[in-house]
Each structure stands twice: as structure tokens, then as C-alpha cells.
């Protein structure tokens, strides 16, 4: 009955709650980065403390996604689970490849556009900007297939009873 998905009083057998976990993972990361950037810009340690809720939110969401996808990550999957896992990895690949191409295209084109049109376009600076980008890329790469599974699987309550 997936009792392992009753985590801290929240029933992640329900799809709605699993979707909240997906959003929490990425929202937590955005909060974390926003707090660290603000702290860096304002030279304020108080803002750096603001990164803690983001870190906790991201960590909790990440852990929930891992728990949800655990049965799909073993060698003991049956044909339906294998199909769900393959679909999730395929969709994740499409999203990650698409985002990577858009980002690389932007990196290539932005300086030229800025020079030609005089636009003030953001360009990532080595060190300061690339670290969050690389860590975000890592986070998405690792969690997105699990997030797709958690997002699309129906409520487990009515189909999950072994009785």
C-alpha cells in the first residue's frame, strides 16, 4: 500500500501532494539561489540565512521524489513500471536537451545581439553565475525523471491495495 509515502503526516500517495513536492523541489532551489545572490549583492549574512528555508524545501522535495520513484528504480520492475520509467526518462531527456540547446543558443547569440542592437542582455559570469547554473542543471538532470513519475502517476489509494 506504499506506506513509505506517508511522510511526516503528509500522504504522498495522493497525486496533488506529490505535485506539491515537485514544485517544492525547484521552488526551493530558486529561493536558495535568490537568497544567496541577494546576500552577495548586499554583503549581508542575514540574507544568506534566508537560503536555509530554500535548502530545506529543496532537500525535502528531492527526498520525496526519490521515495516516490524508488520502485521504478530497481531491477525488479515489471513491464508497466518499465514503461512508465522509460517514458519519464524520455520526457526528461526532451526537456533537458531543449533547455540546453536554448541556453547554448542564447550564450552564442546574446553577445552579438548586445553589440548590434545595444541591448543590455544578461550574460553569465564565470564563477559567480556558472556555479548556480551547473548545480541547477545537475538538480534538474537528477530529479526530472522522478518528478515526471510523481507528477503523472494517479492517486495510489484505490489501485494500490494488495488485497
Amino acid at each position, binding site marked *: 500500500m506504499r506506506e513509505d509515502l506517508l511522510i511526516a503526516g503528509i500522504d504522498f500517495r495522493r497525486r496533488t501532494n506529490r505535485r506539491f513536492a515537485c514544485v517544492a523541489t525547484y521552488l526551493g532551489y530558486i529561493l536558495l539561489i535568490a537568497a544567496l545572490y541577494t546576500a552577495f549583492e548586499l554583503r549581508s549574512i542575514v540574507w544568506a540565512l534566508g537560503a536555509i528555508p530554500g535548502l530545506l524545501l529543496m532537500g525535502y522535495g528531492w527526498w520525496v521524489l526519490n521515495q516516490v520513484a524508488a520502485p521504478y528504480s530497481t531491477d525488479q520492475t*515489471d513491464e508497466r513500471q518499465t514503461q512508465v520509467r522509460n517514458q519519464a526518462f524520455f520526457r526528461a531527456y526532451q526537456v533537458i536537451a531543449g533547455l540546453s540547446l536554448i541556453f547554448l543558443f542564447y550564450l552564442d547569440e546574446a553577445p552579438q545581439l548586445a553589440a548590434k542592437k545595444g541591448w543590455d542582455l544578461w550574460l553569465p559570469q564565470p564563477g559567480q553565475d556558472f556555479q548556480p547554473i551547473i548545480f541547477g542543471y545537475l538538480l534538474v538532470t537528477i530529479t526530472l525523471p522522478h518528478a515526471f513519475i510523481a507528477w503523472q502517476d494517479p492517486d495510489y489509494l484505490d489501485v*494500490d491495495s494488495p*488485497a
Partner: protein
Amino acid sequence: MTNSKVNSTNSLFNRIGVLRAERHLSRQELADALGVNYQTIGYMERGDYNPSLELAFRASEFFGLPIEAIFSRQPFRPLSEQLYGSNKPTQG
């Protein structure tokens, strides 16, 4: 419970739920017999999953019934109607 619809574009109906209930089997017992996860039995009963041909044959062998008695592309008529539907008492 008799009919399970997979989805609107690729409909497959099955009698897994009825057959399982007739034989007093739990989802776990049927899943063990067919070599799948018990959740997959639930998904099949609810019509959220189309089994592979191999799994359909395994179900057929397990229940001792032809495949067309378990799976169909058309909705199944209730078993009672199939058995007794043509023997309606005549009036007068």
C-alpha cells in the same frame, strides 16, 4: 467492475477484476502468479494500463480461459446477461 477502459484512443476492456473476485484472489496473489507488481493488477482492473501480449497470455493460462474471454476491444456484456439474457420469460 466488469469492463475496464484503458483510454479513449486505444481502448481495451478486461474482466480481470471479475475473474479475480470469482476466485477469491487478492491483487498480490494474482500479481505473484502473473509475475507483476500488485499495483499493475490495480491499473489493469481500472483500465489505466494495457498489458503486453505476453502478460495477456499469462493471464489467459492462469485463469484457464481464452484470451478473448478476458480481454476485448469492445465493452463486455455482464456475465449474467450473457448467460441468461436470451432466456427472458415470455408473457401471455
